[in-house]
Every structure is written in C-alpha cells, then in structure tokens.
C-alpha cells in the first residue's frame, strides 16, 4: 500500500519506527565478554532447568539389537586424565554415604546379586560422536533400595578413583535404564572402561557416565563449584538426552 508523504513527515515517521526497534539493541550487551560470560552461563542454567522439568522417567532411550552394536574395539576409550587409575580390584569396595539407612562399604558381589539388566544403548558424547554399545549391570534404583537411600533426596554424588567426580539429579538416577554397570559386551568391565564399576545412563551424555566408581553419596546439597569435573568448567550440569 503506497502512502504519500511530505519528505519531512516521512523522515519523522521513519525515525519513530526506528526508535521502536531500540530494545533489540540491548542484545549488544553480549559483545562485552565480562557480561556475556555470565549471561551464557545463566542461559545454560535456564536450559538445565527446562531439561529437568521436561525429563520423564517413562521416556526410554532407544535400544538396539545385537547386530546394531559396534564391535568392542570400536567403542572409544575416553578419559579426562589417566585411562587406568590402577584400582586394586581385589580389595575394591563401593563406599555409600549420605542420606541412606545403611551407609558403609559394599562389595561388587552385592551389586551383582541384584537383578541384572543387559541393554544395547547409544553412548552420546558431548563432542558430537555417538556409539551403540552393549552394557550390563544393576539398576541404580535397585541398589539405592538395597542401601535404604532416601530417594526423595535431590542428588546422587559420585567420586572416582581417578579423582573425577559427578553429581546427577535423582529423577535421572532412578530412570529404569540407569545402571551401575559392571559389564560391557558380556565381559567384566575392562580397566580402561572403568573397572570395576561405572555409571551407564543412556538418558545422559557421556561425561556424566563416571568410571572407576569409588564413593556414592545421596544428598540434597551440592557444593557450588564442585558439581562435576566438566560442569565446573562450563558444561551443562543436567547433561541429559
């Protein structure tokens, strides 16, 4: 639709309309690294909040047939520091702490005595690669029942023999596909994959799947700046899929 203006009037109308766009200029704040660092960290916190609100325990991660699993030698070893922290497998016990009725040291045999779950699921790395592997272990939720954990607590914290550490929201911990994994490809976990025990949660990214578990703790409080090795450097804490 064509309108006819005096030149002055068109300029005035144009200026008025231009000014209405001013709020968009507020995005220029992102050009200042000091501010943007904080803003994008808040953006991730918001995303994590949304991801947590969206999470449904009855939504399963895709499972695969044995023919779709990659060969064992094509399942990458991934670690942040050393791939073999030389855990003494003979003397190893899992320390259980926090909001549980039966804290203490648990042997691998006690975990293996729980119902065994075998699942072929996708391991998704935050870097962008993904690989379908075969995992075996006990449901974390079954183990938490065994130790009398208060599952209405908010978090499960884990510490590892390689000084890696993680914390996971309880809803994801209680997901039926979340395992205390002691087998891959039908064999006991090898040292570089986290022997004797690792987390395996197909609803979480790879960096949440802590290996060489040493201690688990049921808690309502996370120490700020101590929520996970990579998370403390800026990765999403929820890390969900």
């Amino acid at each position, binding site marked *: *639709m*064509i*309108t*006819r*203006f*005096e*030149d002055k*009037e*068109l300029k*005035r*109308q*144009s*200026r*008025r*309309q*231009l000014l*209405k*766009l001013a*709020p*968009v200029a507020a*995005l220029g704040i992102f050009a200042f690294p000091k501010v943007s660092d904080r*803003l*994008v*960290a*808040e*953006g*991730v916190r*918001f*995303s994590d909040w949304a*991801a947590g609100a*969206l*999470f*449904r325990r009855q*939504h*399963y*991660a*895709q499972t695969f047939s044995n023919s779709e699993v*990659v060969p064992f*030698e*094509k*399942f*990458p070893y991934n670690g942040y520091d050393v791939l073999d922290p030389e855990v003494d497998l003979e003397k190893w016990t899992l320390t259980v702490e926090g909001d549980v009725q039966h804290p203490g040291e648990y042997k691998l045999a006690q975990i293996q005595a729980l119902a065994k779950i075998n699942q072929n699921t*996708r391991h*998704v*790395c*935050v*870097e*962008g*690669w*993904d*690989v379908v592997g075969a995992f075996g272990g006990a449901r974390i939720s079954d183990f938490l029942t065994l130790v009398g954990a208060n599952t209405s607590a908010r978090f499960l914290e884990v510490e590892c023999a390689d000084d890696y550490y993680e914390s996971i929201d309880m809803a994801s911990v209680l997901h039926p596909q979340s395992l205390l994994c002691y087998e891959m490809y039908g064999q006991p976990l090898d040292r570089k994959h986290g022997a004797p025990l690792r987390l395996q949660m*197909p*609803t979480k990214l790879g960096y949440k799947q802590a290996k060489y578990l040493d201690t688990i703790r049921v808690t309502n409080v996370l120490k700020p700046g101590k929520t996970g090795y*990579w998370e403390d*450097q*800026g*990765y*999403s804490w929820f890390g*969900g*899929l």
Partner: protein
Amino acid sequence: MSNEEPVDKNDEQKDTSPQPDVTGAPAEAGESAPVKMEEVAAAPEAAVKAEAGEVAGEPVPAEEPDLVRAAYEHPLPIRITHWVNAISLFVMATSGLRIFRAFPSFGPKIPEKVLLDIPKSLTLGGWLGGALQWHFTFMWLFAASGALYFGYQLFSRHYRTMLFSPRDLSGVWPMARHYFLFGPKPPATGQYNPLQKLAYTSTIGFGVLSLLTGIVLYKPAQFSWLAFLFGGYHLARIWHFAAMCGFLAFIPGHLIMVLLHGWENFYSMLSGWKREPGYE
C-alpha cells in the same frame, strides 16, 4: 487503492480511524499503546490533508507534486524478529561450528575421518564448553523469535507478501536471468519478486529444520518420536548441519543484494518505511 487485496483493505479500515494527535501534538502523546504502530500507515495521509487544509483553507488536490511515495513494508514484529534472528543466527552458526570442530565428522568415532577443518577464528566460544553455552543460550532466543514471527505472520496474514506459492514459479526464471545473466529486469508487481519469495520462504524452512533437528540433538530420548522422524540421532546431526549450510548459502546473497540496493532499502528494515518503492 482499488486494486488492493482484501487483507490490505482491512488494514486500511483500521487505519482510517480518527488520528487527531499525529501531526499537531507532540509525538509522545500518540505513543501510549503499542497497537498504534499499525495506525501509522495511513495516519500521515490524513495528517497531511489536515495540515494542508489548515494552511490553504480549501480541499487538498489528490496529487501533490512534492510528496514522497512510501510503503510501510516491514511491520514492527517483522523488523524485531529479523534483527533478533540475524544476531541469533550469527551466534548459532559460529558457536555451532566450534561445537562441530570437537568432532568434525559424520562417520564413526573409530576411525575418525575429519570432514572439514574449520578455522578457530571463524568460531565463537573459545572451546567446546564455551560454544555450547552460547548455543544453549541463543537457541531460546532463536526459538522465541521464530514463534513470534510465525504467530505474527499467521495472525496478520502479512505472509502473503513473501510466501512463495506455485503461481510465483513462472517468475523465477526471468528474475534469475536478470540477476545472474544480465537479462532484462521484469517489472515489479509487489514488495518481493518471485526469487526473493523463494529465498525467504526457504530460510523459513531452514529455520524450522534447524530448530526441530536441534531438539533431537539436545533431547533425543525425551523427543524420541521426533528423532525417529529425522531418521535417528545420527542423521539428525547431518540435517542440523545441512540447515546451517542452507542459511550460509542464503546470507551472502542476501547481503550482496542489500548492498546493491542501497541505503533506502536497508533502512526500510530498520524503520519499516520504504521510500519510493518500485511498485504501485
């Protein structure tokens, strides 16, 4: 005005409501409600008449030789979403490329075949974690802007000016011949020529594709049905990249055309008003 489409007539009816404050009173007096932005379209006409009437005390001639023709081409929601999108897409593409750098392949991890070595200088975020922070922040802005855009386009039916439809097909080749082979310029019939419509409509497709595949990559287990639609997580990552390639193909051409068409054309995406448009 008689050849206007019905949708424009509706606008016109709305616009011809009394506008006492537009010329005489200070600008601020008329600024109270945001709804008023649409009224501006026709108000000046009334205002000019009123002004002329005051001065001359007689009816205004229909055509004043010193008047400027202008069209309110880009309503405020379109301009806001255009610029929010421009910024979001810049951030999403540059941080996305930094994320891609962490595993620049679409194949298996072992053996990893590097598909593209993207220079770090083209990327945003510094490292994978930083890039993800930018990506996870601006994805909300991009999605919100997209929702506002779609909502406005459907509500206002403004999309009729830009949505590519089958009847635009015949105009694509003459326009392409003009742009790329220096053929004669087909006469302008509306705000956008068929090739522009094709380009803008495609970018909407890229936007939808990037958003949906992004949801799959972000939450493949929670949105397993969406992952299934795109052929699974692995393929969704390829689609996501393809959507970005679509944008990267569009943007340079878009910027070149903006440069070639000069300031008035560019300024119209800021002010909404296009001075002396090349159509009636």
